């Protein structure tokens, strides 16, 4: 704080020290309303920046030794003004600027190396400004981009929330499939969730080769450039406060329809009579868990429970549904709170920005919460007109507690039976069988062992799993204007992120009691405990350290707007080290901070021979990864008479891809582009389309995978070998001297236009991507020791379209604006050497690549269902062109033509339609998103998992029971013994795949803007709702294809934003 005061005093001093000659003073107003206009850049007519207007619209210039002055006033969205004045001035200048009504975005986009005016660019950029970015409310950066940026597709296969793609997938390796995320100038190495979204000024997407190839070998999947807020020179002191609260609906455990408990018990009973549980009941060596119903049935069989009691008990159990208990005790409404305060300002020589934020997240799972403190300071200093020095620090402290129970299981694999209760009849925390049969635990140890019962609700309060993260980013930069058009820049950034995870298994937790008991040896009265009493603490430290240094030279030349030349070249070096170490402590006492030793080398017998003798698990881990990069780059553009632009970029990257001779690590990547402002041509007279620009680019970027090496490499295992406790190493890969980086070529042709007096503006991009040399496994003769070897072998082709149209439908007191975004992209396998011998292995849900040349890469593939057998209700499938129920042989005999290729598991057409209505101080914006042309697999009955104890889908009630049923149901009969391959076929039948197409009212934002309220510059209140109902969907099951497990949880936020 002291620092802040000093800084403020310093800036005030600055203002006066330099005021020796009478300054040129003035103010800028909005022509129509007379309101002061801030952020207007004031420059000389030949382009030298002098000042920026403050909140009162006023500016102040120090000019000496001149009689006349030509001034230019510029602000996006306004017509540029030029005036000539005589010096010295008699009074303050007054400038009126006229608003330009245009739907065209006029922005400067940042590539992370430089900012370029979008209208001069040849490449495809997508710009999300602060206002649009903050329209969404969420604690993280990524999810705010959902539905507002064209060509960004959130990949929700498998329930992922933050996984997204820009223009489809360009690699097969999922670990390197994320777009590159750049924060300000350098790739962000830490956890992206460290970044406080309230401190973000804009987000730019670099989509095509000309835009992204400046990032070279890391840009194959597209680039996301996040620009944080900064201060500005000649700005009045400004404070901004932001607060919001979001409520998140708790997961709907009843979303997946499942059979009721009575039905489940009926099935258990049926299975019991068939002898299904006999093996488990008879297992008196490891005592596996039996459910209460099976225990009861067994007691009844042995005459220990009479028939009447049995029936009463079963009826009672049949009335319970554990989902009620789970929903009441394990889940709650989630609450996110965000507060942030920032201040910025600047004199002529100095500007600063200070930001502080606090976020608190109460997750919907009871026991999970998260809090984040963010602090950021960014200072710019301009000691002389040609030198600028910039320094900043960002600090994030994140603390998360993960004490939620997760899914309750009966052991390593068993599913919780649906009639379980978490509270017993007296309201105490109930016991649930865990790992061993209840009857065994009741008597085991004859009092010599620790309590061996599992009470889920106790566990929730005993859990102590915390992760504390601290992240510091320091950056430093200087910019020096060497001579007229030359600028040299040097930038350095250091990042350190330290994460400490403490997972404490309390002495009273089941995990600890169970482990101690298993190792306990009882000999008469002697009780020996190789694992001491006390808690068990697993401690994991991760450390990330990244350096990045960049030197850059820029040349700007403008000859009377006839020849504009912009050149940029530089070099960059980056070094990232990630290390991890972990250890386990036994007998941990959190009060005294003591631990106890155990012997890791003795193979101890396990209590009652429940398992063969074992070593005590140490959980010791170490690892360290280093990624090093050196890059040289060049970027240039030339514009002739503001009509024709040519651009080119070239970049060479090298990294420490292990084992490759250094020379081969250098990979040149390039791009070239051209733009033609057709509407500026003298022969152009198409009045309906006043602005028309054509763009064409081509070029290459790459993907880096440092996990693959070119020499025989071995990987030391961090744990000693299991049996002999010796250091041991896996041979990671056989030699691959021809290893290269993956390469993504892209051609982009685009059209930018405005029509109807600039009321409609838009762009249409067509692109084709050729991802080649993709690393993937290639089959080799297994006799060499490997079935396949990872090589640069596969290729994917992606073709697509991005359309974006902004319209201003009404202007005036009532305003109505519309933004339409539509994207199409389709990825097809072009080359893939790993042939699949057995066509039925293609069957799946599109989670992994289907290696069939010419087919959509992530395809939902099914067996062709031919109805149910009228004799016995078996599902019939097409096998080798013939209907068959011989499931055993089926998988081998199925041929390609038997399979149904539904289509992509990723939406191929998607987009959004956003309407914003403004009336006086009110503004309402609704975003409707659509995702089309894709498929997903829904749930249905799987008798195998049902028999294993997982409640079945309600399709169970539709099952075939007698001949004739096949005419109205496709759910196979329940058979005993079950045939798991029959399940496998049915659950992957074409009738179980559904179209994912849907239209959703994604979110609505209602805001009210108070103008000039007392001392406040502005105050805005926001009501925001997200995950509103689906408007239309193709599937008849009323499923949400993007949130299959629990449905999309409704989020409602209330926000406030103040500037003063």
């Amino acid at each position: 704080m002291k620092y802040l005061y000093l800084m403020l005093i310093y800036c005030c001093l600055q203002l006066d020290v330099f005021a020796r000659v009478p300054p040129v003073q003035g103010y800028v107003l909005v022509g129509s309303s007379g309101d002061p206009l801030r952020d207007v850049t004031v420059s000389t007519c030949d382009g030298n920046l002098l000042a920026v207007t403050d909140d009162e619209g006023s500016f102040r210039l120090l000019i000496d030794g001149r009689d006349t002055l030509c001034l230019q006033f510029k602000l996006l969205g306004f017509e540029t003004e030029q005036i000539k004045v005589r010096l010295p001035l008699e009074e303050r200048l007054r400038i009126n600027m006229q608003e330009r009504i245009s739907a065209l975005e006029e922005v400067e986009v940042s590539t992370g190396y430089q900012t370029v005016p979008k209208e001069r660019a040849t490449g495809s950029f997508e710009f999300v400004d602060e206002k649009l970015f903050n329209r969404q409310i969420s604690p993280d950066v990524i999810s705010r981009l959902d539905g507002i940026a064209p060509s960004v597709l959130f990949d929700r296969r498998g329930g992922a929330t933050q996984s997204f793609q820009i223009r489809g997938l360009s690699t097969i390796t999922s670990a390197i499939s994320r777009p590159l995320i750049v924060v300000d100038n350098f790739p962000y190495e830490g956890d992206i969730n460290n970044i406080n979204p309230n401190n973000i000024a804009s987000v730019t997407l670099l989509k095509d080769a000309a835009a992204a190839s400046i990032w070279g070998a890391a840009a194959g999947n597209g680039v996301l450039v996040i620009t944080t807020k900064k201060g500005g020179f000649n700005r009045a002191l400004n404070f901004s406060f932001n607060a919001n609260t979001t409520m998140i609906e708790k997961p709907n455990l009843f979303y997946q329809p499942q059979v009721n408990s009575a039905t489940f018990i009926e099935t258990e009973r049926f299975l019991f009579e068939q002898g299904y549980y006999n093996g488990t009941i008879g297992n008196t060596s490891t005592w596996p868990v039996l459910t209460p119903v099976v225990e009861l049935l067994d007691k009844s069989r042995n005459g220990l429970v009479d028939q009447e009691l049995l029936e009463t008990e079963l009826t009672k159990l049949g009335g319970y549904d554990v989902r009620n208990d789970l929903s009441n005790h394990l889940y709650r409404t989630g609450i996110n709170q965000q507060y942030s305060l920032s201040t910025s300002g600047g004199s002529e020589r100095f500007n600063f920005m200070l930001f502080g934020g606090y976020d608190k997240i109460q997750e919907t799972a009871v026991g999970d919460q998260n809090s984040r403190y963010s602090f950021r300071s960014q200072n710019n200093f301009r000691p002389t007109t040609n030198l600028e020095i910039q320094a900043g620090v960002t600090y994030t402290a994140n603390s998360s507690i993960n004490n939620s129970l997760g899914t309750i299981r009966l052991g390593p694999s068993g599913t919780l039976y649906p009639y379980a209760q978490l509270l017993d009849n007296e309201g105490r925390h109930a016991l649930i069988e865990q790992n061993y049969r209840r009857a065994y635990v009741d008597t085991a140890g004859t009092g010599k062992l620790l309590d061996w019962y599992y009470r889920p609700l106790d566990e929730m309060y005993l859990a102590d799993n915390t992760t504390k993260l601290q992240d510091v980013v320091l950056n430093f930069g200087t910019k020096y204007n060497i001579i007229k058009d030359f600028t040299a820049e040097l930038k350095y950034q250091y990042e350190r992120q330290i994460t400490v995870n403490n997972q404490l298994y309390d002495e009273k937790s089941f995990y600890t009691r169970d482990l101690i008991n298993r190792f306990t040896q009882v000999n008469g009265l002697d009780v020996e405990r190789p694992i001491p009493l006390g808690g068990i603490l697993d401690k994991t430290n991760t450390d990330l350290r990244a350096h990045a240094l960049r030197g850059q030279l820029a040349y700007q030349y403008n000859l009377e707007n006839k020849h504009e030349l912009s050149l940029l070249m530089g070099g960059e070096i980056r070094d990232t080290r990630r290390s991890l170490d972990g250890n386990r402590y036994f007998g941990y006492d959190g009060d005294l901070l003591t631990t106890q030793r155990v012997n890791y080398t003795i193979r101890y017998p396990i209590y009652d021979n429940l398992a063969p003798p074992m070593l005590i698990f140490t959980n010791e881990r170490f690892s360290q990864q280093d990624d090093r990069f050196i890059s040289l780059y060049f970027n240039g553009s030339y514009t002739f008479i503001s009509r024709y632009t040519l651009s080119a970029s070239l970049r060479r990257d090298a990294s420490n891809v292990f084992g490759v001779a250094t020379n081969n690590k250098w990979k040149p990547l390039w791009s070239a582009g051209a733009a033609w402002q057709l509407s500026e041509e003298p022969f152009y007279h198409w009045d309906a389309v006043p602005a028309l620009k054509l763009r064409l680019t081509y070029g290459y970027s790459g993907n880096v995978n440092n996990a693959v090496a070119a020499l025989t490499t071995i990987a030391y295992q961090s744990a000693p070998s299991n049996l002999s406790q010796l250091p041991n190493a896996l041979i990671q890969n056989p030699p691959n001297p021809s290893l290269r980086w993956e390469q993504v070529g892209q051609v982009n042709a685009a059209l930018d236009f405005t029509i109807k007096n600039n009321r409609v503006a838009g762009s249409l991009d067509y692109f084709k991507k050729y991802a080649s040399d993709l690393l993937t496994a290639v089959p080799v003769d297994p006799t060499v020791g490997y079935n396949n070897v990872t090589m640069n072998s596969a290729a994917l082709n992606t073709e697509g379209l991005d359309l974006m149209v902004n319209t201003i439908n009404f202007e005036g007191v009532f305003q109505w604006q519309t933004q339409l975004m539509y994207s199409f992209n389709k990825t097809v396998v072009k080359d893939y050497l790993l042939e699949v011998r057995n066509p039925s292995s293609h069957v799946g849900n599109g989670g992994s690549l289907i290696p069939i040349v010419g087919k959509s890469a992530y395809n939902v593939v099914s067996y062709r269902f031919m109805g149910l057998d009228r004799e016995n209700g078996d599902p019939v499938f097409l096998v080798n062109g013939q209907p068959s129920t011989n499931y055993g042989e089926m998988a081998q005999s199925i041929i390609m033509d038997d399979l149904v290729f539904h289509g992509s598991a990723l939406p191929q057409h998607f987009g959004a339609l956003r309407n914003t209505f403004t009336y006086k101080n009110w503004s309402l914006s609704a975003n409707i998103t659509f995702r089309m042309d894709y498929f997903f697999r829904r749930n249905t009955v799987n008798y195998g998992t049902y028999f294993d104890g997982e409640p079945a889908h309600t399709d169970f009630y539709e099952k075939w029971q007698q001949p004739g049923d096949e005419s109205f149901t496709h759910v196979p009969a329940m058979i005993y013994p079950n045939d798991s391959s029959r399940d496998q076929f049915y659950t992957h039948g074409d009738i179980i795949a559904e179209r994912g197409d849907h239209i959703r009212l994604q979110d609505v934002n209602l805001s009210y803007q108070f103008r000039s309220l007392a001392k406040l510059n502005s105050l805005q209140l926001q009501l925001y709702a997200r995950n509103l109902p689906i408007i239309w969907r193709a599937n008849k099951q009323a499923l949400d294809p993007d949130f299959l497990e629990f449905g999309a949880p409704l989020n409602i936020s209330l926000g406030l934003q103040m500037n003063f």
Partner: protein
Amino acid sequence: MKKLFSIYIIATVLIMSACSKYLEMKPDQSIAVPTKLKDLQAILDYELYNIRGYPAGGDMGADYYYMDDNDLEARNVDARGIYQYAPIAYRDIDWTDSYKRIFYANVVLDEVDGVLLEELNETHRQAVKGAALFQRGWNFLHLAQLFASAYDPNTADGEMGVVLRLNSDINERSERAPLYESFAQITRDLGAAAALLPAENITPTRPSKASAYAALARTYLYMGDFEQAKNYADSCLDIRSTLIDYSTLDSMRANPFELFNEEVLLHNILVANGSMLSPNLAKVDTVLYQLYSEHDLRKVNFYTRQTDGSYAFKGNYSGDVNSSLLFSGLALDEVYLIKAESAVRLGLLDDAAATLSSFAKSRYRLGYVPEFNFSDATLALQTVLNERQKELAFRGGIRWADLKRLNLSPTTAKTLKRTVNGEIVELEPNDRRYNLLIPVEVIRQSGIQQNLRD
């Protein structure tokens, strides 16, 4: 502009040369190119591949167990096929995992003479080299016993053997060597290993001179070279000969044997498809169970009665409880039996009787140890083979090879029978189905010749 470009180019050159060191950094510290002797030792100590996953195809087809129809129905096609001697059934993993171990051995052998010793010495280098040679020969042996015909010295030159991969170059083309050459390589590797390895090793997961001798004894027995078999068995027993007295075991335990028990020379484990050989599924062949006399301690230490009246195997030398992962390494009891059988074959009946007697002491209840007094060679052979069958049932890698070699002589040949869904399937002696099929992918990628079927 020209000047700028030349600066750029000069900078490029300078940076490139200055940075080569910078880029030599390993991306992952746990990764290394094997350059030190301890790296090679660590490769061989990678238990997941080098100790586990020994071939199970022969044992899945062996006659010491049977399965109920229902249980069999639940196995996958190949497992079922191997069980019921189907002409087309694959055990790809037996081939691929064995060759993976051979690749590991070859990586070590390619590097061992040049690596840095650091704090280790030449003796360690010898031991690592010996261990790699052992691993190669030992895996060739398993492959040859599974994928090639039984070894008949008279025809071995004309029979197809296995692919002898002798270095780690993955670009070298695979070819099947003649059976004779395959076994010559096996005995060469194991012999060289025996010369280099220490008499006993610090842990049974590493081979030793004793285990190399035992492996050679097993190999020569299979080849019908009984003199050599007996010699190597003797050499092994000279190093170690103490058997476990089964009367000291607690037969009530889920497995009376512990990990690394006293008889274990080399600890290996096999892995069968879908728990095929797990005690719940693999029921002890009733004829085999009848072979054990009332006072045979193996009856209670090896087997346990199931609720349905059948018997399950529990006496796994791996020390595991209720596990389908059978011990598949080398143990002293086998060496005794190799010695006894070789003696019988060589006509040294007294020698055989003495060997069997000292062996049987540890296997029968005190006072009930059978007397071995051989006058008739045929009877003696029958006795020793019976003991062998009783001792080494459910011991991976032995029974299938025994069936193959014994089938060469009509007097010891056996027709295998399985009853599946009421139907009897048979495997006649010397049937081609005794040689498992080579994985299709191997045939496709390398073009080597597949094993024939009738």
